[in-house]
């Protein structure tokens, strides 16, 4: 059980440095820089709704690559594997601890309807190792908590997995998850991601399994205040005001 200093250092370098607030240094072209700068990160303990652990898994049958190689591919092409309604912007340095990943997503306004409501936000890479990485959400994001993306070698069989541990952040998001189709959309997104990763590894025909466990069914009413930072509401108003900002710039122009 003795561990060398080198191993300890490697373990420490896997983690992002703690931050009080998100500091946005660079915004990828096309990304909406909204709901990220100055926000704190939130864990599953700070959200509003019940705490869920959802695990999505796909068996990469017959894949030739090792778990580490599949993860390398996943990290390198992470934004590519996302559906258009969950647009991730590639970061300049890739998936590294502390990196901010911008997301422009859309969510449905009603169940079984197209995703039209915009949500601009992002996540921070909190932990990275050879076969996994974890992202953590900021205040105002639809969910409070983290998502871990991993590739496992189970006696020579390779599996790719997305596991989230999160609560809805505020009452608006909780309603959207329960009644407006956000939960179904989320499932669709991670199934899409895993299926496309599998395809990139040359694996087709495998289905994604999903296990959903309610770790805590308590509503945290003390977190109702999170509603004031709701990224969805802010994004809708931001988008609605776009013509006004454009007109303002035209008027100010000499």
């Amino acid at each position, binding site marked *: 059980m003795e561990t060398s200093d080198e191993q300890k250092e490697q373990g420490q370098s896997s983690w992002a440095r*703690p931050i009080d607030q998100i500091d946005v240094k660079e915004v990828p072209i096309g990304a909406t820089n909204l709901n990220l700068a100055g926000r704190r990160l939130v864990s599953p*303990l700070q959200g509003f709704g019940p705490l869920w652990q959802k695990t999505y898994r796909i068996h990469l049958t017959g894949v030739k690559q090792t778990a580490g190689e599949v993860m390398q591919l996943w990290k390198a092409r992470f934004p590519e594997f996302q559906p258009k309604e969950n647009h991730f912007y590639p970061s300049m340095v890739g998936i590294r601890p502390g990196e901010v990943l911008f997301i422009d997503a859309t969510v449905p306004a009603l169940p079984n309807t197209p995703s039209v409501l915009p949500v601009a936000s992002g996540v921070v890479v909190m932990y990275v190792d050879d076969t996994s990485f974890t992202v953590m959400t900021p205040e105002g994001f639809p969910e409070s908590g983290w998502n*871990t993306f991993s590739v496992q070698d189970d006696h020579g069989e390779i599996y790719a997995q997305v596991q989230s541990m999160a609560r809805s952040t505020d009452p608006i998001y909780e309603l959207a998850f329960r009644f407006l189709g956000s939960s179904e959309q989320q499932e669709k997104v991670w199934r899409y991601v895993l299926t496309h990763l599998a395809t990139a590894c040359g694996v087709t025909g495998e289905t994604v399994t999903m296990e959903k466990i309610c770790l805590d069914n308590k509503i945290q009413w003390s977190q109702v205040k999170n509603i004031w930072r709701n990224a969805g509401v802010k994004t809708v108003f931001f988008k609605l005001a776009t013509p006004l900002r454009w007109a303002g710039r035209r008027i100010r122009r000499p």
Partner: protein
Amino acid sequence: MTNNQLDLTVRQVKGRLSIIDVVGDITAFVEDQLQNAYLQATSFGIDSIVWNFSKLNFINSSGIGLLVVMLIRARKQNVRMGAYGLNEHFKRLFEMTRLNEVFNVFETEDDAISAFLGA
């Protein structure tokens, strides 16, 4: 990076508090061990659990997730959770993941016992 080894020892203090001594790594592979230690700690009918992390070697994000699960479980059973012996790296981790807002973090075992048992 890690050897996925963990030793957990449960001690009882004054009949009301259990201390779990952690030696090794906390990763997804040790879920059952943690659950068993928690069960053993609560089987004494105590109202507080303190984790001794002074010999914690490594924790990954799945390990942090397991600690969250333990916290939730403890809350449901009205068991208070505390920790001591965190080095600077692990203290920073607790801050980043905001576990420090729900875990009572102490410098020493005596501090933890005094705080929980008012000794």
